């Protein structure tokens, strides 16, 4: 049990009668890169606040490194790095001063790592933070969370302001961190294509509920589009098992289904007396289908 990096049991939070996170239960071993997806207001930031002890649950419980989120110890906090959606940098400081301030709070700070990354990511450390662009601030904010080499890195939209080149470099660094399978990343982003690259696991939050959790590969193999082409008009009310979306038009039909296995293919062809092809879907399509 103490091997879990994150554990949550029926974690729930309501604000003013509205439930923003409902019955959230997970158990995360070390080494996963979890992509957290959900529409605006789905509960992503609330989840981070609860896990990291910035907010209290209405019911349920969570822990990080075996320590209750409500009372995280200094030792547990020292193993966590957090990049919030809006940075908490001090505008009047220079990047160097800000990093120095953060470094002074962390005994395990690695200056050589930060030197290398600030060069590679082209972060202008000598300028005052209030003169930096959104992307530069975002990079600096990420550096602040990386310097103590956290075992758990929590990222809330870390790359939204980065250009494609900077985003790719950022992701490569994330993957280098994940490369030894001992550190854990929880990464929320609307840039679903990025998560498709870096994530090993995906959590889908919808209106405060965790509607899918598991391996990304498994998600992509289970939610697929099925194309049907027949020599005869298809039943307009045709539905497939576990259908998320469907459209029948004359002799052709397209369905998006969950829980797909290739064993379903042959019986389906026979049943419908039609050609049936299966198309794998990119994560963004899967996300849209889960919200249809």
């Amino acid at each position, binding site marked *: 049990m103490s091997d879990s990096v994150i554990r949550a049991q029926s974690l729930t939070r309501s604000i003013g009668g509205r439930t923003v996170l409902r019955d959230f239960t997970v158990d995360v071993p070390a080494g*996963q890169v979890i992509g957290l997806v959900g529409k605006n207001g789905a509960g992503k930031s609330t989840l981070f606040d609860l896990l990291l002890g910035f907010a209290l649950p209405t019911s349920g419980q969570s822990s990080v490194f075996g320590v209750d989120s409500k009372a995280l110890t200094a030792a547990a906090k020292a193993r966590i790095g957090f990049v919030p959606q809006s940075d908490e940098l001090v505008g009047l400081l220079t990047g160097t001063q800000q990093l120095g301030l953060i470094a002074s709070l962390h005994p395990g700070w690695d200056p050589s790592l930060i030197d290398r990354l600030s060069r590679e990511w082209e972060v202008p450390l000598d300028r005052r933070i209030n003169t930096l662009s959104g992307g530069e601030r975002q990079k600096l904010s990420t550096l602040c969370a990386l310097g103590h080499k956290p075992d758990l890195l929590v990222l809330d939209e870390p790359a939204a302001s980065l250009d494609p080149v900077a985003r*790719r470099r950022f992701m490569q660094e994330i*993957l280098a961190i*994940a490369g030894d399978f001992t550190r854990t990343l929880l990464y929320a982003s609307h840039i679903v294509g990025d998560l*498709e*690259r870096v994530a090993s696991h995906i959590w889908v939050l919808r209106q405060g509920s965790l509607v899918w959790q598991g391996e990304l*590969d498994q998600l992509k193999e289970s939610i697929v589009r099925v194309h049907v082409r027949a020599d005869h008009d298809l039943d307009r009310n045709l539905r497939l098992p576990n259908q998320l979306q469907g459209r029948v038009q004359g002799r052709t039909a397209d369905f998006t289904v969950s829980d797909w296995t290739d064993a379903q293919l042959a019986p389906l062809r026979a049943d419908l007396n039609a050609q049936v*092809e299966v198309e*794998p879907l990119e994560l963004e399509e899967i996300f849209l289908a889960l919200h249809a």
Partner: protein
Amino acid sequence: MFTLHPQSGVPIYRQLVDQIRRLISGGQLQPGAELPSVRDLAVTHAVNPMTVSKAYALLEAEGLLQRNRGKPMTVAAGRKAQTSLAQRIKQLEPQAAPLVTAARQLEITERDLTALIKRTWEQQDE
């Protein structure tokens, strides 16, 4: 060495497994050839290391790759450099199905499709 399309819908580990299998059956990857480390491959292509590691593990289980302690994975020794024609054709089948589907949707006949493949083949020879 590999062409990965994270957004193609096909899980990355499957893309890797298919490509490595093809390279080995085609003889481009000879027995003893070293594969990039999980970490290198993951960082270079900006894809998750777990999915790379899964691909290697599957190929190892099939006996195509060999794990060497503290050293890079290699193409397993003792395998014939090239697998039989039937096996290689089988590997191409997944590529053939979508092509035929697309041709049918465009109402292209079998003969015209065959002609197209022949033409493309000849162009690549030039």
